[in-house]
């Protein structure tokens, strides 16, 4: 059995802890092939909830983890809880980058966004009704050294490989649960829409950046022009400054938008996790069907040998016809074997059936939970996005009236500047 859920131990439950990823630092070390490398480590701080509730403020326990350790943890969870939509990690490499944004993993902005993403991951896992009780998770949060060994000891690695293979395999399932098929279809849609949105957003960001930067050119011209003007001079100067500020403001705007993009990305990756759960169902269902089919054919064989009636074409039947029937001892042996196999097969089918049903039940519950979470989170993300856009616009507009209320000067200037 793949599921090896450890019994929840109250004082070890991660749900009762306050968790945060406080900092990030650069480290130098040697990697597996003994080459020097620079990597970033993140400080994971934990504090028991009850201590906080009681008003005590003990120093948090903390340890350093790097991204690859988070990955390890997640892979373990994926294998151990195939019926759970496991929260995703922030992206490994910077993707969906608009051109000015650095794709460098060492870039401080990227590191900062990753830190937030990792914290988000831990919080989601720790607040999950099932995942939060996992022992390995608890070790991850509390024991800096030796954690890796503990994980490997669970032997999840082997299961991880077969899982990956199964995910990409093609097989035909006869009777999949309709709901899961729909959910799988939905996960495909979610994936496609979020990635489309992210790509479109990048293109928009690129163009918007261009527009703002060209406005910056006005700044220079206005300043130069103001030098030869008398009454218009002041107005032009302030217009020039405004243009410079305007052009510079795009960096902040797009940085804010990155946060929105990160929220979308989370659900892009979540869609993958959702799809994996559906695929797992297909796999278990398929295995069940295979086992059932196998059992049926074995029973048939048994019947054939026992009764001598050949219902379907078989090689044995042919060879019997051609070369004569076999000896009764052989027949007995074969029957015996088959009976054993049938018994095993029935066991297998029972197990598979249970596995399948359990998976369906648990997965359905978690998928519902996921759906609710997704609706809530994305709605909030959209609202925040809209509010951010509005406040950005207001910022630009609020800096403009300074121009209009400047000293009186020629109408030409007014016409020109009011067009911005």
């Amino acid at each position, binding site marked *: 059995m793949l599921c090896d859920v450890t019994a929840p131990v109250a004082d070890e439950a991660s749900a009762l802890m306050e968790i945060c990823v406080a900092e990030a630092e650069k480290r130098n070390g040697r990697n597996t092939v003994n080459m020097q490398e620079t990597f970033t480590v993140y400080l994971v701080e934990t504090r028991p909830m009850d201590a906080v509730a009681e008003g005590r403020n003990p120093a948090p326990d903390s340890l350093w983890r790097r991204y690859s350790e988070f990955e390890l943890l997640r892979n373990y969870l994926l294998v151990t809880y195939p019926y759970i939509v496991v929260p995703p990690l922030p992206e490994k490499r910077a993707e969906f980058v608009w051109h000015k944004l650095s794709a460098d993993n060492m870039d401080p902005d990227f590191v900062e966004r990753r830190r937030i993403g990792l914290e988000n991951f831990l919080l989601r896992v720790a607040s999950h009704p099932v995942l939060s009780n996992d022992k390995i998770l608890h070790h991850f949060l509390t024991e800096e050294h030796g954690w890796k060994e503990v994980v490997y000891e669970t032997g999840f690695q082997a299961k991880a490989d077969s899982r990956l293979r199964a995910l990409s395999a093609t097989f035909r399932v006869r009777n999949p649960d309709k709901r899961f098929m729909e959910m799988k279809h939905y996960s495909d849609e979610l994936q496609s829409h979020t990635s489309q*949105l992210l790509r479109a957003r990048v293109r*928009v960001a690129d163009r918007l950046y261009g*527009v703002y930067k060209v406005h910056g*050119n006005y700044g220079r011209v206005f300043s130069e*022009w103001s030098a030869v003007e008398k009454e218009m001079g002041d107005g032009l100067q302030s217009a020039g400054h405004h243009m410079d500020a305007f052009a510079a403001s795009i960096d902040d705007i797009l940085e804010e938008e990155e946060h929105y993009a990160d929220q979308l990305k989370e659900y892009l990756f979540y869609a993958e996790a959702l799809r994996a759960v559906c695929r797992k169902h297909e796999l278990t269902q398929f295995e069940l069907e295979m086992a059932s089919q196998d059992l049926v054919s074995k029973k048939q064989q048994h019947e054939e040998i026992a009764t001598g009636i050949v219902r379907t074409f078989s090689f044995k039947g042919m060879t019997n016809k051609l070369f004569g029937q076999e000896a009764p001892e052989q027949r007995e042996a074969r029957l015996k074997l088959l009976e054993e196999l049938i018994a095993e097969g029935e066991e297998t089918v029972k197990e598979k059936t249970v596995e399948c049903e359990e998976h369906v039940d648990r997965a359905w519950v978690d998928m519902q939970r996921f759906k609710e979470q997704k609706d809530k989170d994305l709605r909030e993300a*959209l609202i925040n996005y809209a509010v951010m856009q509005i406040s950005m616009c207001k910022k630009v507009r609020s800096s403009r009236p300074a121009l209009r209320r400047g000293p009186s000067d020629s109408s030409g200037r007014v016409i020109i500047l009011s*067009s911005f």
Partner: protein
Amino acid sequence: MSVTAQRCMASSGQKPIAEILHPLSGGGDEQQQQQQQQQLSVTVSVVVGGDKEASLTNGAPVETPSPASTSSLFNRLQLDDDPEADVRDPYTETAETRDLFVTVDDPKKHVSTMETYITYRVSTKTSRVEFDLPEYCVRRRYQDFDWLRMKLEDSQPTHLIPPLPEKFVMKGVVDRFSEEFVETRMKALDKFLKRVADHPVLSFNPHLNAFLTAKDLNKRQGLALLTKVGESVKHVAGGYKLRPRPAEFCAMGEYLDTFNQKLGTIDRIAQRILKEQSEYLTELREYGTVYSSWAASEEELRRPLEGVGGCVATCCGALDDLGDGMSQDFLPVLREYVLYVESMKNVLRKRDQSQAEYEGRLEAAILRKQEDRTPHLLDPPTPLAPLRRRTMLPERPCSRSCLCFSVDAGGGGEMPGQGGVFQRRPEGGLGALAEQQETGLQTASHRHGRQEHPPLRKVPSSVGVALNRPPGQTGRGQNARDELKHLIAA
């Protein structure tokens, strides 16, 4: 009708000239109007936290995000109302004192055997005595406007005539009869005419009167062509040395160059912005549609997604308008002022020319005087006398006994006893040059082509001294002068 400085203009009431604001200047009225504009600005900040109670700054509670409250949230965010305060007719401050109103509208296509062209209706409403009727309505085509402008330029060469829209359009590139082009051109013609009508000096020009009232403009195209030719002859045959400009004109010239250059740069930047903006718009539209298509596959999230998609679409519309506004309101203004700079440069060139001519003659005269010591004054009056008289340009009224009044030159147009050059009709031959020179000097102190009517009596001392000196034999320049006289006279 002669144009003089002492006249009080009906449209300006009893205000002295110096206090009348030129239509092109800003003026205090504008600031007043700005202050009067009420700007609605309701600043609302909405705090939407995860589980925090969201509330508006005015204390009204907002429910935590639920399908109903999402839209109410947006409804409660009010943006500043953008008053269209500043984009208005800059001439309204003179509205109370205006008595000449002109409009150009109603374009119509005319097809004849020879050509196809567009005419515009020019409507006039006035209470001025110079006009026979209070209202007029005529049809004019671009050529007529061009004729008017030429006439204004010739009759008042020191004044800055507002520019016309471009005359020639590349046949292949722009469709002369497309609605957009005709619309743009008509607006520019309307602006041109309004500027002329509001000009304290130009609006009293008889040619404007004719333009506004005559059923059929007898444009005398032939002569117009000749004038144009004459001008170019003037430039080519001038052959004068490039004289150094007085400081004010130098500064003016430099300013014009800088101004022109800056306008050009701004125009280029604006074009670039338009281009970038349109590309941005394309991407934004695409972005909006992604939201809509995602909404189709969602249930709970459908409304917020469609909401965002709708907002993006609205932004696209607004951006479109912004682009249109820029190309229709902003860019033409820039181009107009580039044309203005051209006009100003022309005026400066003319000034340069007359300075060169004058100084050239002066040098020649001095040379002659040195060569020839015989006093000419004892000779009987030669046929050249009328000419000589004309070159004497005193800065104060001549006395009755002065020689210059003794002979009334045919076509010279001098009114005896009223002072020298200033009463002369602007179309007088060489007088024009002198007046030009002096008024040109006066206008130098005003930048941006603002033409306050010059107090014509003041003449800088350097010129005055030169003028006072009786010129020597000027016979050599006679032919050139005659030519000029014929060419300039309308």
